[in-house]
């Protein structure tokens, strides 16, 4: 980032149970209320107490799209944090720690150690979480921010615990503030203020809110990290928003329940992570066969199998592409950040309603559990809603009740004549208006077996290859024009770049920053972030490849899943790859170094070394 921008990164490290979330939240509120942008990544483990948590919060006066490369301020809540991370700190940085319990290591020259005698400052308060509040005061002073805002937020934060708790916290925060004023040298920077106050959310909130805005009336899930936040948001807001929220016995139940609700006419969705999604795949195919619009969300984490439940990866792409047997129509979309995820939800619901098929959203831990600032006015909670060809009005001119006589009905079978409604009418567009259960005059049966236009199975009595082919082609036809309904990916950056970086989903933010850094170095790079996986704008991407000098695909997995998929659809082969599969997300400098190495042609797959060990 260019140096005239405000760009500050604070890290807080400790063990699970040491209460890192609270100071993180308080700091976030302080910055967003000043109109600063924020991107926070929390590295943690799949245990409830102990281990190592490392929260990195980067703040800027311009939108911040990743957690960055460097740290300005480190808060050590335990010795382990000091031991692990002091080495990351360079000249001019500050390291805050409790000098009663933590022994500092030997820092690089120019690192300012800020020891806090917590016992002394808190009258030996036995509450272990109190050190966090002292540290908050200290941070504020180092940043030369007025104490009042901290007091306000602590009051808001603790008021439901009573005035005593508020007073205690404000008191120790003030002690930390004053102690810093007396003993430590503040940063020589000014934290900007006066910008339009922002809001803060994480990707799971954004997905849930996007669903709510799209009109989701049924949400169900089985808890699975890192997708559980969607369930929590939905559960909390269910009653206020009139959304039916259910926790189900397993993911198979989840997927099928969501389909049941969707069939009655609810906008319906569910979220999980890779292993849970594996269990949902059979149902995805069934929704496609029954032509029921429903949305599945897969929040990726590191794998295979149970893998590393609290770490990020972009490794589920092929699972999602291969979700359920045989060919069928469905949308697959990988939003590129939280706001994009929010906006994707109503768009996707309109699409699945229009095309009567399932839709799958691919998120990952980075988006879903990352904390981001967002302009509240950018959150459009009343998006355009289009339910497609749906029949909700009863008709009384045609009866659901058969006339009584039985007759041959084109299935090689004798049966009662129906109301004449063809749920799977072989229309020119391939889209057949769908009647909702309960509507008079349209009673019909939907089926996961192959069926004829009226829903009667072709697998009973007389299979018929011509009917079968007709129905396969009807479903395929409806999807033919789907790509026209979504935006093609857009190339940004230098027109005649030396390198074209292609990413998908959550890597957009970090690649953008790497592009900027490279151009500052004089290497012209442009960037194609891909969001829509199916349908894929193959021609638009092929154009970019055709005009690119050197294509490099950046992805957070071992085998280059997106590259292989892109090639399967287009035949395009990229010149180089930057990949990562150690559980941690990319940092901008890792991509910068990757581009340099690839330009030097020492390798065609660059895997960065992960410096921050958490």
């Amino acid at each position: 980032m260019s140096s005239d921008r405000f760009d500050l990164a604070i890290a807080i490290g400790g063990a699970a149970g040491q209460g890192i979330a609270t100071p993180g939240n308080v700091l976030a509120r302080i910055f967003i209320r000043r109109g600063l942008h924020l991107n926070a990544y929390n590295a943690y483990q799949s245990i409830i107490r102990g281990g190592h948590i490392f929260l990195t919060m980067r703040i800027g006066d311009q939108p911040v799209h990743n957690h960055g490369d460097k740290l300005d301020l480190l808060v050590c809540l335990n010795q382990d944090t000091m031991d692990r991370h002091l080495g990351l700190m360079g000249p001019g940085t500050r390291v805050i720690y409790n000098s009663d319990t933590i022994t500092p290591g030997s820092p690089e020259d120019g690192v300012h150690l800020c020891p806090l005698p917590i016992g002394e400052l808190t009258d030996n308060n036995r509450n272990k979480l109190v050190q966090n509040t002292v540290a908050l005061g200290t941070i504020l002073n180092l940043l030369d921010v007025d104490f009042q805002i901290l007091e306000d937020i602590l009051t808001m934060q603790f008021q439901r615990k009573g005035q005593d708790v508020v007073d205690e916290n404000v008191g120790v925060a003030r002690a930390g503030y004053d102690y810093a004023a007396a003993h430590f040298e503040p940063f020589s920077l000014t934290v900007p203020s006066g910008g339009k106050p922002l809001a803060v959310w994480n990707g799971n909130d954004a997905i849930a809110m996007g669903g709510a805005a799209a009109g989701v009336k049924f949400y169900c899930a089985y808890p699975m990290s890192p997708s559980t936040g969607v369930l929590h948001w939905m559960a909390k807001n269910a009653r206020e928003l009139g959304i039916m929220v259910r926790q189900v016995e397993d993911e198979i139940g989840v997927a099928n329940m969501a389909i049941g609700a969707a069939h009655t006419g609810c906008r319906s969705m569910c979220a999980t992570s890779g292993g849970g999604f594996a269990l949902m795949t059979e149902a995805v195919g069934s929704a496609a066969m029954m032509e029921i619009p429903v949305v599945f969300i897969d929040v990726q984490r590191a794998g295979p199998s149970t893998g590393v439940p609290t770490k990020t990866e972009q490794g589920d792409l092929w699972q999602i592409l291969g979700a359920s047997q045989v060919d069928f129509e469905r949308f697959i979309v990988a939003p590129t950040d939280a706001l994009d995820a929010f906006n994707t939800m109503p768009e996707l619901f309109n699409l699945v309603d229009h095309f009567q098929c399932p839709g799958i959203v691919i998120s990952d831990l980075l988006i879903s559990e990352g904390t981001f600032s967002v302009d509240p006015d950018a959150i459009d909670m009343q998006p355009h809603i289009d339910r497609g060809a749906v029949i909700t009005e009863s008709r009384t001119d045609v009866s659901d009740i058969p006339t009584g006589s039985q007759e041959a009905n084109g299935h090689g079978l004798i049966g009662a004549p129906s109301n004449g409604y063809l749920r799977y009418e072989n229309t020119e567009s391939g889209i057949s208006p769908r009647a909702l259960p309960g509507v008079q005059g349209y009673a019909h049966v939907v089926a996961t077996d192959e069926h004829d236009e009226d829903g009667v199975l072709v697998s009973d009595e007389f299979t018929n290859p011509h009917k079968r082919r007709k129905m396969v082609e009807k479903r395929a036809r409806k999807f033919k024009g789907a790509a026209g309904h979504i935006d093609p990916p857009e190339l940004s950056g230098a027109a005649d770049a030396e390198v074209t970086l292609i990413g998908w989903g959550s890597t957009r933010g970090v690649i953008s920053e790497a592009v900027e850094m490279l151009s500052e170095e004089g290497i012209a790079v442009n960037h194609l972030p891909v969001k829509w996986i199916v349908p894929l704008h193959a021609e638009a991407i092929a154009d970019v490849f055709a005009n690119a000098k050197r294509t490099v695909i950046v992805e957070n997995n071992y085998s280059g899943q997106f590259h292989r998929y892109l090639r399967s659809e287009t035949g395009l082969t990229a010149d180089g790859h930057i990949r990562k599969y150690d559980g941690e997300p990319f940092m901008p400098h890792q991509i910068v170094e990757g581009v340099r190495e690839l330009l030097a042609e020492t390798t065609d797959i660059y895997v960065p070394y992960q410096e921050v060990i958490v």
Partner: protein
Amino acid sequence: MSVETLTRDEVQEKPAVPLKAKDYKGKVDPDWCPGCGDFGVLSSLQRACANLGLQPHEILTISGIGCSSNFPGFFNSYGMHTLHGRALAVATGAQMGNHELTVFVTGGDGDGYGIGGNHFTHTARRNVDLTYIVMDNQIYGLTTGQVSPTSSIDMRTKSTPFGSVEAPINPITAAIMNGATFVARAFSGDARHLTGLIEQAVQHRGFALIDVFSPCVTFNKDNDYPFFKQRVKKLEDEGHDPGDWKAACEKAMIWGDEIYTGLFFQKKDAPTLGDQEPVLDEGGAIARRELGITRDQSDRIIKRMM
């Protein structure tokens, strides 16, 4: 076409014509083997619906996969022929999505107690308001005759040519212990009895199971019509008290010269899942409500984020 919020009352403004059993005939005639027990279940459900005055469009019949699960195709109502074992999960979603529908779930012993066993347990404990009719032929019919979770020990099937060695489950006692509030057993050879039980089950608010002995004349030569005809005995004829779970379990465990049918257990006062979800109170199926959220609601949400 666009979404219309039609309440069920509006739809029903026209007084319903009284219906006959044949009015519930589906688009095609059943392709079950001649003599299959499932015919009796179909005709009983048709008669029960006529007796109850249910209109086809008010009913949603949901099945999994199996001979018995072909049921919705042969029955005139809204229907869903879903995945093997998943009917109860789909039905719970549908019942929540539109709780004004009368929901039937129809399927087999393999579908419901084998692969679908987990949904059986949990749908029962949730007391979802639906009627679950299991055509229990103690065999996997559609896949041409393998052992089922209700097959008796020593039964020879294609997958147990030397006889089954696994104790069968007892759907009645299992359902009672899982929290089902209406638990009955019937024999498809006694359509009148079955019809009556279905009527009661529909009128019951909550999860109602009717496990029906529905002989597979093709693959189960052990548990055929004569087997059941000689053995079935109605609980109703013995003054059994469906409020007494112990007696219910005891009677349900009897499997020999006498096998009981009838209503084993009923708990009338238990709230259904829907009853306990205030979201449904606002009136009308959630599937038919206005989409999206209000400005007030969104303002409150966004404010909490700042």
